[in-house]
């Protein structure tokens, strides 16, 4: 009886922690979504990252005023980083910078440069209200 109780108790506890984690992840994802929608252009960065600096320079050079969230300065930065990783579909390495335009995920520097060169970035920015003519 006791054994059964303890095993079921541990099972209950592990299930609870799983659910906890899943719930947490869902919460983080919601948070990310909320943050991304707060402004026309949202960039998640790390303060010491140079590529993030390049990303900021690019948008500022275009006349956009992006909202920048430094993950190393946020309380749950690690979780947000994990959430971003799953959003991007990468397992490791550098995640940031990650850009959201109009609340929708655009991607990393790779994608931003590709969109900029093929001429789709500026219309996207205008659509989101980040750029005026």
């Amino acid at each position, binding site marked *: 009886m006791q054994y059964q109780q303890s095993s079921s108790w541990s099972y209950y506890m592990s299930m609870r922690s799983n659910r906890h984690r899943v719930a947490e992840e869902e919460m983080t994802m919601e948070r990310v979504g909320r943050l991304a929608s707060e402004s026309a252009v949202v960039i998640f960065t790390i303060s010491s990252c140079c590529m993030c600096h390049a990303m900021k*320079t690019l948008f500022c050079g275009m006349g956009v005023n992006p909202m920048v969230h430094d993950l190393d300065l946020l309380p749950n930065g690690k979780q947000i980083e994990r959430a971003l990783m799953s959003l991007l579909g990468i397992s490791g390495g550098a995640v940031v910078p990650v850009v959201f335009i109009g609340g929708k995920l655009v991607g990393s520097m790779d994608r931003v440069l590709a969109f900029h060169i093929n001429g789709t970035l500026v219309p996207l920015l205008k659509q989101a209200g980040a750029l005026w003519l």
Partner: protein
Amino acid sequence: MGSQRIIGGGLGLSEAGPSTHHHHHVPSYGVLHGINTANPSTLINEGHAFNFGELEEAIVLQGVKARNDEGKAPLFTTAPRPAATLEMFPSWPIRFHQTSRGGSKSGGESTDSALSTKTEPPFEAESPMSKKATTPSLDHQHQLQHDHHDASRIVGPSSSPQNQSQAKSPHEKRKGAGSTSEKPLDAKTLRRLAQNREAARKSRLRKKAYVQQLESSRLKLTQLEQDLQRARSQGLFMDCGGVGGNLSSGGAMFDLEYGRWLEEEQRLMGELRNGVQAAVSEGEMRGIVDGYLSHYDELFRLKSVAAKSDVFHLINGMWTSQAERCFLWIGGFKPSDLITMLIQQLEPLAEQQIMGMYGLRHSSQQAEDALSQGLDQLQQSLVDTIAGGPIVDGVQQMVVAMGKLANLEGFVRQADNLRQQTLHQLCRLLTVRQAARCFIVIGEYYGRLRALSSLWASRPRETLMSDDNSCQTTTDLQMVHPSHHQNHFPSF
């Protein structure tokens, strides 16, 4: 002079032929031929050099036959084997012959001295020998031949009596000069013969050593060629990340691959030019243009692989030519500069296309500024890491610095990504034929930069003092591209 003539004969009949006419020694020269053609087998001594001791005994003056045989191959090149190496040293046997002739002329002393000089390195100048072998020596050769007559080796001694009388001229020192047939050889002659034999043996040994040296060098050469071949083929099969490679080998491998890429690019350029000239169909031209574009895609893929193993190699541009390196921007060309050049060269363009090109240039410039500023910040941060901090913290410092350096690969990748996107966008902006022309312009532009680099590298170095023009030229070159120097030199 006589020696030169003989040498000429050793190298080839063509030289011997005309020269022999100038001298009255044709008969004796022909004698050598005659002897050779008469009994090559006896003279070929198991592939060794001449056994001149035996030769002396065997030489017979064959005047008539000699004259007839002038057209045959020269004695010294055929008798000793291996032919390949001997032909390189026609002087060896010739020297021997001169020695023997010189000896016969002036007696044992000159023979001895000639022999002694012969033991020095085989490639020394002919002059010591040639002095001994003067033109009248051939008569003495006849004399010599008669002295050591071996009937079994002689062929048709038709003119021997006549030469014999000539040969019996005033060389009293010559022992045994009077004998005309087999006779027990006297002491001095025996000594001379022995010395000749000894010298011949030594010469054979030297030649053997040299031949062995040559053979080993040849083996080494083939081995080197095989290694080179293997290294090249390995370059083909090396996977990304540089399997088993240290940093430098990653760069070396990329150099190899880039070389191959350039060769293929030249071929594709030829296809483009043919397509434009032959005015092929649109579909076919589209195929050629797409082929060229994907060739550039392949280059960027190679660079991304190389960036993982040796990013410094890509950034310092040692894989490009010097002129290209001058305009290097984060490990490659600057897209906005290329577009500026293309806008000029691709005229006439439709208005829409021109607008598109200018827009592309503008976007590229913004991206380039962003990446350059990011790289500047990386450099600054690196400097702060390495310069600051106490010495004690050295290891930690290095660890942090290494972490920052790892970001370099990201910048090179993004720069290449920008270049790749620019090329693709160019293709979208232009018609198929315009795109073909565009790629031809690009290919020729970089081809000329590479040609300029090699010309510059091989230019004759004039001192600036002596030549005002060159002074001015260098100043002009410097003035033409000051902005480029500022913008394009890598920040590291």
